[in-house]
Every structure is written in C-alpha cells, then in structure tokens.
C-alpha cells in the first residue's frame, strides 16, 4: 500500500467526516455536504487533491457502479411489471422531449446534428445517485413524487444501454481517437460492429448471471463464511465491471444488468446488505470527486457560456419534467419536488460524454464544458430542493400550517401529536378520533396532507424532525407524541429531538422490527410498539383456533406470548451490548431469531393455568372418596 494512496484516503475520508455532519446540521442533506467538501479540497480552493481528480473520479465511479448493481437488485421483474405504465409513460416523455429540445437548441448554436443528438441524449440523464439518496433521506421515497422519480430514473438507467449501442453509429469519422489511452477491444472497429459487440456483451452478462453467478454464490454460501460471501459479491461486481472496461463499455451498465439477473435469485437480500456499506462510502467518494473535478479554470475563462449552459440545460429539463409531472397528475407540491429533483444532469452523462468524445463526435473543449455543466448542475440540485422546501412550497404549495390561525385555542384541545400518517399512524389517528381525541398530525406527503385537511384533520406539512414545525404543531403544550414515521432512522432522530427539546412529552414509538426496538430501548424509550408483534400473534392465535383450539385458550396463549416476548426484548437488549460491538445487521437478526426460538420452549403459557386445570382436583377427590 503506497503512502500516496493512504494520503488520498485520509483526505477523502476526513472531508466526508467533517463536511457531511456540518451539512446535516444545517439541514442540507449528505449529498450537498460531500459535494461542497469536494469543491473545497479541490484544485481550485485548497488544492489537497490536484490534477489527478480524474483518476479519483474513475475510482469513485465504482460507487456508482455498486449503486447500479443495487438498483438492479431491487428491480424484481414483478415490481417492474407493476410499474410498467409509469416507467414507460414518464420515461419516454421525459427523455424524448428533453433530447429533442436540447437537440434543437444545440443545433441552433452550431453543433453538428450528430453532436447535438448525442449531447441531447446525454443531458436527458438525471442523477440516480443524488435523487435516490436525497429522497430516501427526506423520507419521500414512497410519495407520488418519489415513485415518479424512481420510474424516470429507472427508464434512464436502462436506456443507457441502447444509447451506448447507438453512439458508435453517430461517429463522424471511421478513425477513432486513441489518444485518450483507453485501449479497448472495440477501438478499431467500425460503428455497426461496435453496436454488435455491445449487444453481445450485454447478453453475455445476462447469461453469466443466470448460469454462472447463481451456482457460484450457492457454492460460496455452502461454505458458511460470511466474509467470503461478501468477498464473492464484490468479486462478481468487480469482475463484471472489469470485463466491461476491457470490452470498452460502461462498467456501471454491466453491473446493473448483473444486479437485475441476481434480483431473482435467493441471494438478493444477502447481497443487498453485504454491499450497502461499501456502496455508501464509495458513493460519498463519488460525490466528493464530482465536487473536486469541477473545472473552475474553464468556468472562470468562459463564465457566461457555462452559466448559460447550466441554466439552459436545467431549465429545459425542468420544463419537460414539470409537464411530465402534470400529465401524470402529480399535485403541485409533488410536481415541484419531482421537477427540481430530477433537473440536474446525472452521472451517466459523464460516461456518455467520455464515450462521445472518444468517438470524436464532440470536440474536447465542448466535452469539458459539458462535463463542467453536469457537475455544477449536480451540485446545485440539493440547494434547489432546499430552496423549494423552505421558500417555494411554503409560499405557493401546501402550507406548513393550515389556514385557520386560532393556534392557541386549537392547540389546547390537541394533547396528542402524531408524526407520520401512513398506514400505521392513520389507524392510530382514526382510533383516537373515534374516541373524541383529536390529534395534530405531522406528515411530509403533500397529497396526503391535502386530503386530510379536506377531511377536517389538523395537519402540519413538513419534516417532523424540524424544530420549528414541531413548535408550530404545539409540541410545547401537547402531552403525548406518537412517532409513527415509516423510516426507522427518521423516527429515531425525531425521538432524539423530542427528548432533548421537549422533555415533558410522553413518547410512544412505532418500531418496525426487533432491531429498531433495541435502538429505541438504547435511546431510553419505554413505550415501544413493534409492528411485527401484536398482529403476528393475532394471526397465530387465529391459526390455533382454525386448528381446533378452544378460542379462549388460544387468546390467552397469545396474550401470554406478547407479555413474554416483551420481557425477552428488554432482557436481550441488555445482553446485546455484551456481544461484539459491530455485527452485520442480518447476521444479528438471525442470531436473535435463534436465541428466541431456543427460549420460546420455556414460554409455555398453560403453566399458569393451574386454576382451571381439573386434574389435581380429580386426583384429590377420588383419593378422598377412596379414603371414606
């Protein structure tokens, strides 16, 4: 390991550790933190990382490669099929219109038609990395805008394959620029042959996935060494990526395909949890590299051109996206998130621009300009979303606070705040309302907020972890806060905020799983409600009944099981800290399951039911009678 590698790693990791928490504290999200960190350590400001920025970019692109592998993994054919209308409809609309408009504009400013077309295709890409990360962090992934964004991004990611196949056909001259140093097998082939090679490579990955990867993983899994499985997963990704580079294709695409193929195998979840941490770190690195690679010299030299380029591209994209959103009937708020969220030019554009310049379709100067514009647009996106959330939407969209402003009088009658009104929170809210308790609701899905307000609920719109919104919702006067947000992480951070800022509030928390419950127990929460407990036990009770158990005995068995399981939870929670400090979550999950199954044999609820058991009596009476 060379000193310079360690040195670089030091700089990058330190940047992440310093800037991301600052950005988070300021409510900006991690992506912006990485990007700003990158800009600051980049050659233009501090110069910690210099001209080698492009090499780092290559290394960091591996984060994108992994992300696409994971996106591929999430792409079960069934899900895809269910979303097909959304994916095809919004996808074709967005890509088609954006490409056409950009094509027209670029043609007007003097590009050749080949260059205009290929650039149009490249800039129609948005950044899956930024958008998915941001939506997930804000807890918006499941809203309408989240679904539409995912659909569009998916369509874009998939269409990179045919675009890469098409580009060689647009190559102006048969002679290729080999000075870029990318010695690939495709180097000297004519356009049509390159297209063929590309399709063949894609098919090879699919076939390898089905007939080689899965048997290979089965073999590894049988050895039962966790780290070996992780190594195997990384090996598959790197091998695929490397193969693609040798052939001269985008490694991200290869792994995306590999992911899709493996999505149907039994290893899907295991692979996901194994690669997730690597992906996170490398993706962060990628964002830093994007920040660092912005060529400020070029920008300083042509400030107006670059500004126009960035503004023009983003405006075109935003207009098309807004219309697309309107057509797929997104409400104003959702549409704004969708529009601004996807308005940047994404990481695939880097890949495409590199390929375009390699094919001599576009001059090196313009390629640099385009790449610079891409990087800037990516940096601006989180800022735009922030501005949208703090400035635009509160003014023009769904109000954070409902119109009627008799705050004090209303708050006095709302002792309960429910954060998160999805399927879990809404049941609580309905139940409370049926019993005459009106709760204040906090939710960040504007569609839902609109409906609830129409139905007369008092709803605040926005991020429930924000102090100002909690104050508006009357956290200072309320007695109970119910944390029912879908994302365990957001729920946990909400709980932390409440404990710190409103210590008088009684907190009742929804926990998705046993592991979440442990985290909450560690945070000092007493009232934890596991989604996976009561309902599951009720189903189990009904199963016993269906098998012929007497109903009351089955119900009692259920009651006792819940009691026993909650006791076991707090017992195991303490025990948990005695184990290794860091264990992978899935393994932990399995170990807990094992422990539980072993202990459950002790939980024989009928032990307590001597009272109704007539056997001891029968013995006694018959004994007495014999005695008489």
């Amino acid at each position, binding site marked *: 390991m060379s000193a310079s590698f360690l040195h670089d790693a030091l700089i990058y990791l330190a940047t992440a550790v310093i800037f991301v928490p600052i950005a988070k504290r300021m409510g900006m999200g991690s992506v912006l933190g990485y990007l700003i960190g990158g800009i600051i350590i980049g050659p233009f400001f501090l110069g910690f990382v210099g001209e080698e920025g492009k090499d780092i970019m290559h290394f960091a692109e591996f984060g994108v490669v992994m992300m696409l592998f994971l996106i591929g993994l999430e792409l079960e054919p069934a899900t895809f099929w269910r979303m097909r209308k959304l994916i095809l409809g919004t996808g074709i609309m967005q890509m088609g219109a954006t490409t056409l408009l950009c094509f027209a504009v670029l043609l007007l400013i003097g590009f050749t038609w080949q260059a205009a077309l290929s650039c149009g295709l490249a800039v129609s890409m948005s950044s899956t990395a930024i958008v998915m990360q941001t939506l997930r962090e804000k807890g918006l992934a499941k809203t309408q805008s989240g679904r539409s964004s995912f659909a569009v991004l998916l369509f874009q990611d998939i269409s990179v394959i045919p675009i890469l196949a098409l580009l060689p056909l647009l190559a102006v001259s048969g002679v290729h620029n080999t000075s870029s140093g990318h010695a690939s097998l495709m180097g000297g082939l004519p356009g049509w042959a390159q297209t063929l090679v590309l399709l063949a490579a894609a098919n090879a990955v699919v076939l390898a996935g089905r007939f080689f990867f899965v048997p290979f993983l089965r073999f590894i899994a049988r050895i039962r060494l966790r780290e070996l499985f992780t190594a195997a997963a990384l090996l598959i990704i790197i091998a695929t990526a490397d193969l693609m580079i040798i052939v001269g294709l985008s490694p991200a695409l290869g792994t995306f395909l590999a992911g899709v193929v493996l999505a149907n195998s039994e290893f899907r979840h295991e692979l996901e949890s194994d690669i997730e941490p690597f992906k996170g770190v490398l993706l962060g690195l990628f964002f830093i590299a994007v920040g660092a690679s912005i060529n400020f010299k070029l920008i300083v030299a042509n400030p107006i051109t670059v500004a126009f380029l960035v503004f023009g591209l983003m405006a075109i994209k935003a207009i098309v996206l807004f219309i697309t959103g309107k057509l797929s009937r997104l409400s104003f708020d959702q549409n704004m998130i969708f529009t601004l969220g996807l308005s940047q030019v994404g990481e695939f554009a880097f890949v495409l621009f590199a390929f375009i310049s390699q094919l001599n379709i576009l001059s090196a100067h313009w390629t640099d300009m385009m790449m610079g514009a891409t990087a800037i647009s990516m940096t601006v996106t989180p800022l735009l979303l922030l501005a949208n959330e703090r400035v635009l939407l509160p003014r023009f969209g769904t109000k954070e606070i409902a119109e009627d402003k008799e705050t004090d009088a209303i708050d006095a009658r709302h002792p309960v705040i429910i954060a998160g009104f999805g399927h879990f929170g809404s049941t609580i809210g309905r139940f409370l309302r049926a019993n005459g308790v009106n709760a204040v609701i906090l939710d960040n899905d504007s569609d839902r907020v609109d409906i609830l307000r129409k139905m007369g609920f008092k709803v605040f719109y926005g991020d429930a972890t924000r102090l100002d919104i909690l104050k508006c919702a009357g956290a200072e006067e309320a007695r109970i806060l119910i944390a029912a947000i879908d994302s365990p992480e957001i729920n946990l951070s909400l709980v932390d905020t409440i404990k710190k800022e409103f210590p008088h509030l009684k907190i009742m928390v929804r926990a998705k799983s046993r592991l979440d419950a442990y985290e909450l127990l560690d945070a000092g929460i007493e009232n934890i409600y596991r989604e996976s407990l009561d309902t599951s036990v009720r189903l189990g009770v009904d199963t016993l009944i269906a098998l012929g158990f007497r109903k009351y005995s089955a119900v009692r068995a259920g*009651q*006792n099981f819940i*009691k026993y399981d909650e006791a076991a939870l707090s017992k195991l929670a303490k025990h948990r800290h005695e184990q290794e400090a860091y264990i992978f979550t899935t393994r932990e999950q399995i170990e807990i399951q094992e422990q539980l199954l072993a202990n459950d044999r002790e939980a024989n609820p009928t032990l*307590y*039911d*001597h*009272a*109704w058991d007539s056997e*001891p*009596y029968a013995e006694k009476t018959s004994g007495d009678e014999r005695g008489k």
Partner: protein
Amino acid sequence: MNKILILFAHPRFEKSKTSRALLKNIKQVDGVTLHDLYEEYPDFNIDVEREKELLLAHQIIVWHHPLYMYSAPALLKQWMDMVLEHGWAHGNRGNNLEDKIIFNALTIGGTKEAYTPGGHNKYTIREFLFSFEQTATLCKMIYLPPFAVHGTHRLTANDLKNYASLYQTLLAHLIQGNFNTEDMKKHFYLNDWLAEQGRNNS
C-alpha cells in the same frame, strides 16, 4: 401494624360516584395498598405470580366491588379462579392464606330493605355472598361480615362524605389491630360493628 390490600374491581370506575368517593383519599393512607384490577388487567390476563406475592405481603384483604347481578364483576371472579390455586391457597398443602382476614366492601344500588325475604330481591346480601364466604373458609381465611353502601343512586354528596369517612375509620381500626374478629362476626354488616364502636366510645 396490619397491612391492607384492597382488591378493587369496577369496570366503570370513572362513572361511579360512590366508588370514587370511597376510594378518594385511600392511596395516601399508610398501610393500604389499592390494587385496581380493571386498571391492571384490562385484558383479563391476570399475573398470578404477582397477585400471590401481593397476598403474601398483606394481612387483611378486601374484595371491594359493586354488586352486579348479585355477585362481583367478572374480573374479580376471574381473579378468584386464577389466583386461589389448589395447592397454594387451599388443599392439603395450600396454607399460604391461613388466618388472613378477608371481607367484601360493597356498593349496592338497592336499599337494605330490598334485600330481605319480603323485599324485591328476596334474599339478603349475606346470602348472596355465600360463595365468597365459603371461598374464604376453603382457603382457611377468616371471613368478616361485609362493609356495605346501599342505595347508591340516591346518595347525596353529604351521604357520600359520611360513608367515605366511615370506610376510613374501618380501615384505621384494621390497620391498628384495634378489633376483635369474633366480636365483628356477630354483626350482619361491618357498618353495624362500627356503629357499636362509635356508641362505646362516646
């Protein structure tokens, strides 16, 4: 000093004027444990081990409940069925409750006259409580006459106050050990015994 365990069973405590009046200041009384069964076990899933510990820790037990259909609310019956186990509370080796004192504290809608052979309810309260009395005997406990509040629907605020202080006086006697069970057993209600105590003192 004796310790008293009040096993209170009322499914609609919040709506019961009489019960609230009787129990209003009970929690502050030293030596009294108020155990609100419907509050502790809304799902009827009684923690038998815990109940046994509570019983062992007290010398005097009170079944405090309204009279529903001439008996106790269902949860108190559930409590009796589950906690008073054979082999623990009764039977050859079931001696844990031996010589503990137990009685019913009742709130009753009907008047005392209604609970007479000629009255509306035909039988006396003591007759309706036979199953409690015999359960106590089975568990080798000393069963005292009930403390009763009759005609709860017609009680004035003043009546309620008087009954509450009467109940407190009774509990005070019991805590201080200031009583004779044989003497108490001669009376129909503990109210009568209390009245006699009052006369003797004055």
